[in-house]
């Protein structure tokens, strides 16, 4: 491979990784437009909670998250990207943590380990997902163990859904 092609392959993988982070930003901040920007308009997903067009999924998913989860937090790891010109396949591990409210008002804590199985396409110079499927590998339901007293009272900067989050003020999210 030429030096030029090698640099471009690295840059392509970095661009896809950045978009994987973008997707998580969008989900954790409940930012519908940002979420849509990670998919091509003709993309599709198989998520179980929704199978079908990717932008329709986004319209469904953000209210779904707001309705069902008190908060959600997703980490990605073990990213493998296989480039094939302007298309790429990818797998990434997702280590999620979320809190849900029970009908009796108590909360539970649900860590979940899943994988995203993706097909990415570069169109007009921008990598976006053409397919993203969610594969469940592990989950747990734990009694809620969060606290806000003691040293936890010191954490004054709290992550939020919506544009009040610090990432918007820092212009990390448009």
């Amino acid at each position, binding site marked *: 491979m030429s*030096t*030029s092609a090698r*640099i*471009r392959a*690295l*840059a392509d993988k*970095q661009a896809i990784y*950045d978009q994987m*982070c*973008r997707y*998580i*930003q969008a989900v954790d901040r409940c930012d519908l437009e940002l979420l849509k920007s990670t998919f091509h308009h003709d993309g599709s997903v198989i998520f179980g909670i929704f199978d079908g067009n990717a932008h329709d999924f986004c319209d469904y998913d953000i209210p779904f998250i707001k309705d069902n989860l008190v*908060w959600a*937090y*997703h*980490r*990605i*790891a073990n990213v493998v990207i296989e480039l094939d010109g302007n298309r790429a396949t990818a797998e990434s591990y997702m*280590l999620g*943590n979320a*809190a849900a409210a029970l009908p009796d008002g108590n909360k539970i*804590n649900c860590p979940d380990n899943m994988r995203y199985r993706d097909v990415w396409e570069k169109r007009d110079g921008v990598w976006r997902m053409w397919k993203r499927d969610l594969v469940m590998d592990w989950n747990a339901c*734990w009694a809620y*163990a*969060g*606290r806000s007293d003691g*040293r*936890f009272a*010191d*954490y004054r*900067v*709290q*992550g939020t859904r919506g544009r009040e*989050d*610090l*990432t918007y003020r*820092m*212009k*990390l999210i448009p």
Partner: protein
Amino acid sequence: MSNNNELALLQELEDKQALREVSTLFARALDRADGPLLASLFADGAQVSIGAFSGPASEFVAGGISPAGLERSFHSVSNEFYQIDGDSARGEIYVIDVATWNTDGGKTDTLIGGRYVDAYSKVGGAWKIARRTFVHEWNMSFPTTTVWDEGLFGMIKLRGTRGKDDPIYTILGGQA
């Protein structure tokens, strides 16, 4: 070899790689209580807001590596998102800090999930943290159930420490 566009791509890749190393070394500095390493990661005049602390990085270094009651910590970072703008940059990094604390009458394990939201500046060719704010997302507290000396865990002889006797400092057989 390459045109200007490819050199720009290469520059961005190098910048992002260097910023990842800054965030990784920040975690090492906290977990190993390595004050000189921590201090080396900040630009002059850098500001830090983490938990109870908000102020100059130079003051954060002393307290940041030795919170009262902390026995051990493990800061694991992921989702590293950087935006480069010449010699300045911004970033968001997910972090989970798993820690054991000596508390009244026992030990407590805590997990704290959040994000570092940062500004960086490139000083003399090296990326430094200009501002770091920890954004708290969630936490958990449990009574410690750690096993050190029995069974499978007891067989693992290299142990992390908060000091220069940690195995990472003796990777090539050197003395701490």
